[in-house]
């Protein structure tokens, strides 16, 4: 069964700015891959529980204690733009 993807919408959701040519190319590649992946839909899975994690585990808990923290400069110095000890970004709203 051929797969039809609204690739521009997917790229927007993924926050990746692509040109029309790139959208076209990725769209075709994804359709090919998904056609292969669609085989999983043919399998009888009624009543089968999904596995989200390979090991049967419950949440791990630890004491809520203050531990050692990184020196803020060690990561702020890696950021593209900072001011007053905070990460800085361009304006949030459009024109």
């Amino acid at each position, binding site marked *: 069964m051929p797969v039809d*993807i609204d*690739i521009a919408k*997917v*790229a927007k*959701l*993924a*926050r*990746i*700015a*692509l040109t029309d040519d790139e959208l076209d190319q*990725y769209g075709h*590649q*994804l359709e*090919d*891959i*998904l056609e*292969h*992946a*669609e*085989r*999983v*839909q043919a*399998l009888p*899975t009624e009543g*089968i*529980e*999904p*596995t*989200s*994690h*390979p*090991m049967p*585990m419950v*949440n*791990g808990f*630890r004491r809520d204690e203050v531990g050692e923290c*990184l*020196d803020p400069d*060690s*990561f702020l110095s*890696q*950021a*593209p*733009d900072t001011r007053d000890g905070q*990460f800085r*970004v*361009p*304006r*949030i*709203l*459009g024109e």
Partner: protein
Amino acid sequence: MTDLADLTIARAASGLRTGEFTAADLLEAVMRRATMTEAQLHAYLTLDHEGAATAAEEADRAFAAGQDHGLLQGIPIALKDNMCTRGVETTASSKILSGWVPPYDATAVARLRAAGAVITGKTNMDEFAMGSSTENSAFGETRNPWDTDRVPGGSSGGSAVAVAAGSAFGAFGSDTGGSIRQPAALTGVVGMKPTYGLVSRYGLIAFASSLDQIGPFARTVEDVVLLLEAVAGFDALDSTSIDEPTPGFGDALRTGVEGVRVGVVTELMGEGIDPEVRAAVQATVDRLADAGAAVGEVSLPSSEHALSAYYLIAPAECSSNLARFDGVRYGHRSSIEGTTEDMMSHSRAEGFGPEVIRRILLGTYALSAGYYDAFYGQAQKVRTLVRRDFEEAYADYDVLVSPTSPTTAFPVGERAQDPLAMYLSDVCTIPSNLSGDPSISVPVGVDADGLPVGFQIMAPALGEQVLFQVAAEVERLVDFQDRARLATSDEVKP
């Protein structure tokens, strides 16, 4: 005399303790080997000459003072570039992280440092571990030391090549769908994926969190055991870490395979497997039978769907994990004018390579409204089916075996433009990632082109003992002595 760079870790550890040579000598030997081979191989992205020299000095001082932190003290070890190393650039082979210097060590890295290991540098990989050839690196591909026109496999290709070529005694990589075992097979070394949760993932740059696992590369099974023992065990910083004491694995190496039940996986020995690979695997199975193993055939009927399920689950998890690369806190920021959202979308388009973009898009689609149940939900159910197949197989067998890779090393460029053909490289290794079970690749021969063939052994969760038991016996029976051309050529041998 043998070049020191060619010694096993076990042999080097013993020489360090008898005073035959120093940690500084071992480091000099691997750095000399790197100088001779890197122009052709490009196993490393970063060689940390200074940090390694300091660590080697510390190890030698510790030996002189009678302090012994274990068998890795003074041993040069390479790390895949997705493992965070404090003060040493870590990029996961992506432009988006170019120049990033982690403020902390991954838990596995911290444990290696505490054990006195000498970290030589950071190895090349497919960007964010997405690939099977190490061609997807933003900083140029790694070549195979057996034939430099061929790929080394991937995604941990640089780590495999460093060990095969002698520019490290051992190395660590990460395995999400075969990224340790497949390059180990293609470069003629031993590579192992531990049980999911045995080695902490804290500080490993995440690709697909329910599949990723850190594991070792070395030239012998015994060396792989030494490396694993140094990093395994509970870590409160990783919520999926297994909270149980980790046994030593060394005793398993000398017990033989008398009475061990070995199941050959039918689906992984048929169509799509190169005849020479199949023959080498079958010959190894015959040797195991001669050595007293109880050999039979076993079916994993869902394994043919494992690949399809994997290529929905892994991209879905990656699309979520890689959302953090947005040009705000670290990494590349686009200089485009506009809003924060424009900045993010352009930073990601400029920073990610094509395979990473392909998988983020695929994962975003598989998780989006209206498609979740049909793709991601169904893939997770197939994962349950794969696990059931394994459970049934392990009722009758102690270990399962197969080829590690359907083919030996393929030519550079051959599959680069064909994502599906590349994905098929992982058909034998993916089932163990979906089930979370341990698995190892051991070299067992070469094909007509002189390229190594890997033999895969799989065991149930936390079945590392029997995995190493069979792997060590395979190693002994096959006695694989071939070495990569670039580790044995005249320029390299003294």
